[in-house]
């Protein structure tokens, strides 16, 4: 489309069309993963999909809605906890995983009513308090056995190989669906309005952006996404230990992935998740030094490369691999005639 100003507003470029096709082809290959790869690769890819979900969710919250949360592990833990509860109450195990995430997302409603009134750093630590409280309350449940935790026994009735493949497909499907939702939301009206809120909440309000609705939608979506990541993690590890699931290290991972990949870009968090996955794969055994490295690298990125790896590439080259935003182009003589 073009406007009277002579600029062309475009969304699709030849490159973004090409990469969309490539991404689709990659997904089709991944869909056949368990038939193509060995057990180890399937396990690792399942973990990578979960990291992508977490990374994309945290980025939707921080990079688009401007809500920095140190407490998204609340939903990661609650999703897993509710899945276990449902399973022990007779719900079939795979539906329980999905329903657990739904219940955790519903719990996010009263939480968001309170927390979304807070701004900036208050929201950040406020969410951390919520995570700690959720952890303490879950531990009170006798089913959980305190910090010892509980296993999702219903899953052990499956053959380990079947379970591995099912988990893989479930994680892949969850990732694709969540990515598609975020993609659709960001392309639409909500994407524009939450970014306006992020950049200046008061100004956004003054031009009629429904601030609370925008924040709330993103918060609800990310609560669901993090909860789903939690239930997927439960599906792969089977045991639920409150300390692990409600640990603030999940936030550290999310911040690392998003900052390294590129805060506020669509592709960045995916890049960041892959980087995190590789680092964990190669350095995860070094324990404490690995964590020190994560913290230091995240800090350095925030200070010196605030747009992250992907954001920097985008800025330098003007590349947009996926058609998320709009771009303005001054028309060449040929197009001007065509108008």
């Amino acid at each position, binding site marked *: 489309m073009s406007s009277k100003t002579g600029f062309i507003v475009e969304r699709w470029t030849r490159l973004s069309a090409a990469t969309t096709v490539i991404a689709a082809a990659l997904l089709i290959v991944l869909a056949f993963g368990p038939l193509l790869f060995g057990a180890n690769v399937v396990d690792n890819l399942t973990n990578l999909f979960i990291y992508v979900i977490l990374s994309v969710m945290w980025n939707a919250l*921080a990079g688009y809605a*401007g809500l*920095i949360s*140190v407490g998204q592990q609340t939903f990661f833990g609650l999703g897993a906890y509710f899945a276990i509860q449902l399973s022990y109450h007779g719900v079939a195990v795979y539906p329980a995983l999905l329903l657990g995430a739904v219940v955790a997302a519903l719990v996010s409603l009263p939480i968001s009513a*309170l927390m979304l*009134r*807070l701004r*900036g*750093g*208050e929201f*950040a*630590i*406020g969410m*951390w*308090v*919520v995570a*700690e*409280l959720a952890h*303490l*309350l879950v*531990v*009170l449940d006798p089913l959980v056995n305190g910090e010892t935790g509980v296993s999702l026994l219903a899953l052990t009735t499956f053959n380990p190989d079947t379970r591995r493949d099912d988990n893989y497909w479930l994680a892949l499907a969850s990732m694709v669906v969540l990515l598609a939702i975020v993609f659709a939301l960001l392309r639409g009206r909500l994407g524009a309005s939450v970014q306006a809120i992020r950049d200046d909440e008061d100004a956004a309000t003054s031009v009629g952006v429904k601030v609370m609705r925008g924040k709330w939608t993103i918060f609800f979506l990310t609560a669901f996404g993090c909860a789903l990541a939690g239930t997927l993690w439960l599906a792969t590890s089977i045991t639920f230990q409150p300390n692990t699931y409600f640990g*603030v290290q999940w*936030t*550290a991972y999310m*911040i690392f992935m998003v*900052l390294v990949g590129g805060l506020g870009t669509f592709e960045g968090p995916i890049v960041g998740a892959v980087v995190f996955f590789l680092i964990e794969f190669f350095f995860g055994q070094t324990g*404490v*030094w690995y*964590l*020190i490295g*994560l*913290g*230091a690298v*995240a*800090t350095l990125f*925030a*200070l010196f490369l*605030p747009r992250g790896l992907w954001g920097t590439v985008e800025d330098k080259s003007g590349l947009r691999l996926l058609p998320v935003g709009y771009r303005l182009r001054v028309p060449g003589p040929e197009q001007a005639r065509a108008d």
Partner: protein
Amino acid sequence: MILLSQLINGVLLGGYYALLACGLSFMFGVMRIINLAHGDLAILGACLVFFIADQTGLSPFIGLIVMLPVLAVGGWALQRWMLERSLRAGLLVPLLTTFGLAIVIENGLFEYFGADSRSLAPYIGDFAFDSWAITDNIYIGELAVLIFAVAVVLLGGLKLFLNYTSLGRAIRATAEDADTAELVGINARAVYAVAAAIAVATAGLAGVFLAMRETFSPYSGPTQLIFAFEAVVIGGIGSLSGTLVGGIVLGVAQTFGAQINPQGFLIAGHLVFLLVLAGRLVVGAMRARGGMHGLFARRP
């Protein structure tokens, strides 16, 4: 009688929280930064004093005299090398960088000190558990009273410092509007560095008292950050005297919560924090949080 004893203990515990929260509140008031490494800096102070006491056998109170300037310089450097740059990058960036710093500090301490719980109590002798008997049933710990007194003196002193010294006035002016303050000849960079030095040193002081009262480990920092934050928010963010009230409310809630359930100590604290938030929402007083725009704004 037990109730009264609990109440007194809760109030005294609140003194510790106020001391812990003081630096967090101060830094937010002056620079609008919520320092997510605040709790870990407190533990860093405790570890430093523990290291001195352990290596030299010197009393922790002497170790304190060594540690405070070290942490003050650390705070100054933190402002110059990290926070200043973060603030330029945007209001939310300091949250990310201080969170990263927190992870580096706590895992760094773990690397050096290991996972063991430690305490400074063995280094201060009987003082760790000496108490005054008020009646047959009510005992008041001498250390708890000292901590409370230090908190009151520190918060009061800080208030006097801000109100009656020229540096204090410069800090208030910078907090109000850094650009305008620079126009009238105040060096805002230096003011920020001083404020960061004060905030970090008081965090270390609180950490040392924590270590005298009970045990700590390299990973104790986040919990302390949360307590400090709760005290600040309950008391009204940005108000120094409110911080004391907030600390006391938190301390009393935790002490009574502990009577109900072993986990009740923490749960009650978090619940009170959320209830206070919800309460403000209900009475529509959220606008009063406009107080966060000025640590030193006069209350109507």
